[in-house]
């Protein structure tokens, strides 16, 4: 899932949604750091709350807990502004979303 916030800065956010396999989710979210300002992994609440946040915080990747019943989303760990982001990817993604 990929989105761009309205406003001058127009920050972009990428979210990798997975039910299990957090390592794979982390790897994919790390790739999204090339094309987004913030990158998150979203998992069901009971999974997200048991994740060891060390690997995520070291990579600057945030964790979202999704309550699959109420659909409420909680930020377990906020993402850090990506230092890996490439302008050529971000501008292409923004352009596509604005069309």
């Amino acid at each position, binding site marked *: 899932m990929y989105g761009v916030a309205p406003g001058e800065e127009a920050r972009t956010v990428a979210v990798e949604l997975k039910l299990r396999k957090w390592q794979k989710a982390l790897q994919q979210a*790390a790739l999204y750091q090339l094309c987004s300002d913030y990158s998150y992994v979203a998992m069901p609440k009971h999974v997200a709350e048991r994740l060891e946040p060390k690997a995520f915080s070291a990579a600057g990747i945030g964790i979202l807990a999704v309550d699959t019943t109420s659909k409420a989303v909680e930020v377990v760990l906020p993402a850090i502004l990506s230092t890996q*982001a*490439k302008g050529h990817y*971000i501008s292409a993604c923004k352009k596509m979303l604005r069309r």
Partner: protein
Amino acid sequence: MPDTPRSEVFLRLGSHSEKQYVKKTFHLFSGVLVGANLLESTPGATVSFALNVLSQNKAFAIDPMTYTFGMDLDYIKSETIDRTKSKRTMKFSLKRSFVKLAEEFGNPVSEAVEEARAVTPEDFDEETTEQFCESIYAYQAERMRTYFDADIQLQEFSRECPDPSFIFAPYFYIPYPHAGWHEWRDLNLKLARTFAELDGEIEKHGVICIDQKILDDSARWLRICGAFIDTGLPVFWLWLSPLNEEKVNETRLTALAEGIEAFDSAGRKVYNMHGGYLSALLSKRGLTGFSRGVGYGESKDVVPVLGVVVPTVNYHYPPLHIRTSIIDVERALSELEIFDADDFHEKVCDCTVCKGVIAGRPQEPSPVR
């Protein structure tokens, strides 16, 4: 670790556009394999390439690809213009190269193709099995020569047309553990036994083409290996579809190594039909060698990908002997503080190819995002 000979590496030529790479790197390889469909679709180019390979004292062989006729024929069909109609219409029919192969192989393949169906184990009685084996042997031994005979410019050199270095037995995919796998296994064993008994001076190689799930049952896998060893063929090629060396789990890898050791200890040479670096390592467990494409083909599924496929561009990372996607490489570069080509050549790879294609600085993040 015992001192073992170096792994033999065969290149599989997927298309003639790869020849330039093969020719430049001949010295690194033991030989070249081509699919019979390539020979049929481009006979002139393939035969002249075979001569080139053999003249450099490298091995050359033709994979008869018999397995394709035991699977859904849609896999070997393509959409072409129907020239029998006045109005421009398209038809979905068997590729011409496979039509020619079916004609060359004869029954039961040609009959099944005429009936627009795949062959089944029931199509092979004793007589048909023997005829089919003879036909597959003759095809590989003689097909290149027939192209010489048919070409006015080449006719006078027909006698000089060399034989392939070895000849593959006919083989079909064993769909373990799905219905019918026992019958396909028994057919493959029957074909291997019959093929081993044929007269002919060219070395005969067997192929065991089976779903990789067989490796989950080590005992059964070893029994199958033993049964093939008993066919009398001196050399075997394993195609455990679609085994991926980078992802194979320990159970399967252990069974694979045990199977290889079984062939080795029985005095049979054994190759991996589609392998890479792991296969090179398995030479320490008795694997004689492996084949692969130029930069691809280290894993192959018997079920082909249908439709238009954009090949994934992968980067070979020599220290780990892995192929990784360009996006993964790009993500790693800034993490590794690689900011320009010099950094890259110093920290990652300074081979001739990388020096040739990587220069300057990679595209930087734009200051305003």
